[in-house]
């Protein structure tokens, strides 16, 4: 039987984020758990690095979410993993670019 210690989710998210970015020193991961099932893990990073953490079509951030569910299988907690909203970032433009980029999934 495996033993997963407290805070394993936070350490996992921090480890992965730091491993995929160019500025690991700028990564900070915070966790808030009010205990009502709305636990939140927030990743902050160097502005140039968000794309790396998100990945093409969100592949990396989705994978991080999947891996967190592996770690939290025993505590049965659900975590909401978020990146800060970037001010001035045009989501629609990105969606258009994705559509033009064709099917890459």
């Amino acid at each position, binding site marked *: *039987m*495996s033993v997963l210690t407290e805070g394993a989710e936070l350490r*996992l998210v921090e480890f992965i984020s730091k*491993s995929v970015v160019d500025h690991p020193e700028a990564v900070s991961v915070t966790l808030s758990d009010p205990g009502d099932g709305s636990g939140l893990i927030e990743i902050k990073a160097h502005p140039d690095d968000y794309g790396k953490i998100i990945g093409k079509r969100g592949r990396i951030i989705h*994978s991080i979410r999947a*891996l967190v569910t*592996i770690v939290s299988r025993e505590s049965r907690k659900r975590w909401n993993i978020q990146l800060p909203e970037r001010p001035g970032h045009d989501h629609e433009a990105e969606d258009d670019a994705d559509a033009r980029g064709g099917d890459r*999934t």
Partner: protein
Amino acid sequence: MLYIDFEAATEAEAVQLALDSLGLTRDDITYEVLEKEKKGLFGLGKSQKAKVRIFYKEKSELNHLIEKVKTLLLMLEPAAKIEVNTSEDNKYVISVESEESSHLIGRGGKNLQAIQNVVNAMLQKNQNKYKILIDIDRYYARKEKSVIEQAVAAAEKVRQFKKPIFLQPMNPFERRLVHMELKKMNGIFTESEGSGTIKKIRISWQGEGAARPEEDLQKEPG
């Protein structure tokens, strides 16, 4: 354990020189003083430089990467047994064995794919010089076997009822296996349908001895 000798005016300088040239930190090495520095007496006599022998483990980019992947896997499953195998040049298979492998693999290999995605993202930082495939409890071998078995069973039905059958959606690797395997069966014709990387294969009956279109396999990338 490897070692290199370094010389400098003082012991501390020699060690620092070694760390700088090897790109290691103080924790990575141990050393032994071969010769202590000596100052000439009143500027007379011979002064001698300090000489140290630095012992270090080779810490290549690759080892570093493999350590990272192992750390990741152990974070997911602390009791996992991890083995690293080299298959070809710069291709490595990291096999994981664990009682919890069903969680690590996930439904339809979903979690395994997530692990692989994260590992690929780590590798990208090294310009994709290395490839590391994560295999959990021989998942790929088992998957391969079951895909082929299902395809052959479906092809037998097609042969019997002379009606086309669709297989479940599959990735390029699995489709390639099916195409290759069913090519051996006389009268059976396979074709991928759909768009994107995940497509369905249609198995249809062509009749014994009919000319076999060959281009399907070649069109199918990897």
